[in-house]
């Protein structure tokens, strides 16, 4: 080919030949098509249902529910609306998933580290735990805790009495309920102050250690602050808290707060099941950090505990976070197995009873799916942010 000396520089192609423009156009077309198909299907469904005399729309959310729910974190009674039952179910789902994620993470990390312990017994116990809980279907585990363990506790009249203030029976655990009087705000303020100060103190200590190598005892001082400041608030206000102590009356305990056995069984099962997977994730994360790192750290004179905390875990986190996120999502979705034992989560209260009393399947199923989707996306978002923070920074 002939060259006249000027370098060959392709001119800007016509828009319909430009791959970038084409990609964008095709994506827009695809998105519009999907939206159009979705909208048509939805419209079609609604008009079909109307022509068959099935009520549609979200008006039902304002009608009176008229049924009782055994446990609610927010105020609820049967004179409230279906909209309220949605919130009651949602709060119960968030509660069991949130607690489950917290506990499963703790148990999972402990077991994952134990699995690699140099102590034979510890290692084998962790191995046995993982193999047992990972390999039994979750539903079976829920039934096990509910029927075989909590179900065999004595009835309320023969309840296990803990110091005359708390009672354990097959109706759950009843604990004294704190009643906050007007001055109690100072306790909350103390707690908040304790947390904030500790947070900034930890940051400052980390920076100082990086700069000077000096170690600051964050843990003991933080603990004192977080516990001490609320206590100070309590004392200043002259004890603005009284206790509603449960007592046996009629059929059951009255007063106090009750943690129902359905919650206990579901939480135990979700925690132990998910933790067994997390343990494996943690183990593989730790094993992915090259041995040389440990050896180098030990050679520098770091004690083994610090090696784990400062060298290995931070590097392992990069491998751990993505699969850990899926476990959190699994746990949240698995919490809908609540319906099997009657824990009043969203699926049970809303997609079960509310759906059946109103018959508005399409709206209710759509709302329920939207909730699970949002919770899942929210967890993914948080974990992605965290992942970005711990990801390997190329320097």
């Amino acid at each position, binding site marked *: 080919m002939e060259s006249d000396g000027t370098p060959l520089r392709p001119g800007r192609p016509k828009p319909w030949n430009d791959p970038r423009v084409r990609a964008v156009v095709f994506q827009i077309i695809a998105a519009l098509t999907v939206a159009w198909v979705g909208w048509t299907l939805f419209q079609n469904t609604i008009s079909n249902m109307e022509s068959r005399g099935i009520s549609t729309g979200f008006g039902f959310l304002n009608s009176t529910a008229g049924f009782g729910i055994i446990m609610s974190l927010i105020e609820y009674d049967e004179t409230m609306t279906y909209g309220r039952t949605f919130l009651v179910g949602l709060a119960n789902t968030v509660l069991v998933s949130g607690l489950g994620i917290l506990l499963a993470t703790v148990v999972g990390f402990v077991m994952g580290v134990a699995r690699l312990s140099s102590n034979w017994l510890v290692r084998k116990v962790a191995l046995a735990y993982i193999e047992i809980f990972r390999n039994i279907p979750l539903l079976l585990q829920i039934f096990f805790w509910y*029927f075989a363990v909590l179900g065999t506790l004595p009835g309320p009249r023969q309840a296990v009495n803990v110091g005359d203030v708390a009672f354990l029976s097959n109706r759950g655990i009843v604990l004294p309920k704190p009643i906050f009087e007007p001055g109690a705000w100072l306790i909350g303020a103390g707690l908040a102050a304790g947390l904030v100060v500790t947070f900034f103190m930890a940051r400052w200590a980390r920076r100082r250690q990086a700069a000077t190598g000096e170690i600051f005892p964050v843990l003991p001082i933080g603990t004192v602050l977080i516990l001490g400041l609320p206590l100070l608030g309590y004392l200043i206000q002259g004890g603005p808290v009284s206790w509603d102590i449960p007592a046996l009356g009629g059929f059951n305990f009255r007063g106090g707060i009750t943690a129902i056995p359905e919650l206990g069984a579901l939480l135990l099962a979700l925690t132990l099941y998910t933790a067994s997977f997390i343990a494996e994730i943690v183990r593989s994360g730790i094993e992915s950090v090259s041995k040389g790192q440990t050896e180098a750290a030990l050679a520098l004179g770091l004690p083994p505990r610090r090696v784990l905390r400062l060298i290995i875990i931070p590097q392992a986190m990069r491998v751990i976070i993505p699969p850990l996120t899926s476990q959190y999502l699994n746990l949240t979705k698995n919490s809908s197995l609540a319906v099997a034992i009657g824990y009043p989560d969203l699926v049970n209260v809303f997609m079960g009873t509310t759906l059946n009393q109103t018959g508005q399947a399409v709206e209710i199923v*759509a709302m329920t799916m939207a909730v699970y989707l949002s919770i899942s996306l929210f967890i993914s978002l948080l974990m992605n942010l965290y992942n970005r923070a711990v990801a390997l920074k190329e320097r």
Partner: protein
Amino acid sequence: MKKTIMTVGLATAGLVALGGQAQAATLDDVRDAGQLRCGVSTGLPGFSQPDSDGNWTGIDVDTCRAVAAAVLGDAEAVEFVPLTAAERFTALQSGEIDMLSRNTTWTTTRDASLGLNFTGTNYYDGQGFLIDEALGIDSAEQLDGAAVCVQAGTTTELNLADYFRANDMEFEAVVVDSSEASAQAFDNNRCDVLTSDTSQLAALRTQLSDPDGAVILPEVISKEPLGPVVRQGDDEWFNVVKWVLFGQINAEEYGISSANVDEMLESDNPNVARILGTEGNMGEILGLDDDFMVDVLTQIGNYGEMFERNVGPNTPIGLSRGVNELWTEGGILYAPPFR
């Protein structure tokens, strides 16, 4: 992101499944299929229960079979679809079953907003309470503070809340999803009281580990007319299901039973003749054969036979006719005339 789209896709698929069904002529569909798909309970003695070989019995089951006999000439041509209380209406709306016969209470909401029609009442019931005898309670008004086992998605759940509120009492609702689960929860002492329709309390009691240790309280706190249900908007099918049951009740009133159908075919009582199709064209105008009631009566029998066989005094359920007696016998069963 892929996941998001998948989820949305699945959601829409679900909507279409429900919405895409054309307004069907159920009678033709049943004839084409050669089989009636009938929704029943997951197991409730006397009403609808399968034995170990999968043979269903019960008054609700016979109600289905009677329709199959009328339409297909064969009471055995039924596919029973077991449904929990919470599943039943969606199953009917979506066309998974042709009719529902599952101790279902006729209420305004269900009749008017679910796109369904109740065709009649095959058992007049009311809600009651079952309690451990040892607690020494003899009236429902002493139940303040009790934990009550109740099945999800039922009118029972609503009446329970109404009753306790009206009497200014508190309760804790232990909600389960099948009657087997409520019996189990009651047995395990998870609840102090079990509530359901009284006919079902009698049946549930037989499933407890110690049936004699439980008593049924005297109060009946609601009206529960139980009957078959069909989809709204298919009047031909609605009429068929409605008139098969009316036919069985009328047959009892005029003394026609499975034992004497053949003799009755000779009867010159015009009421009897119209029921059996030897006079008039009742079957034809319903879209059936004129002698459709002959098939129903020979294979299933009249209402009284259906009652005695499944829930009557000589069965383990042991219910007396009570209000379910014919109007001529002091009850409230009253079917419009065949003419």
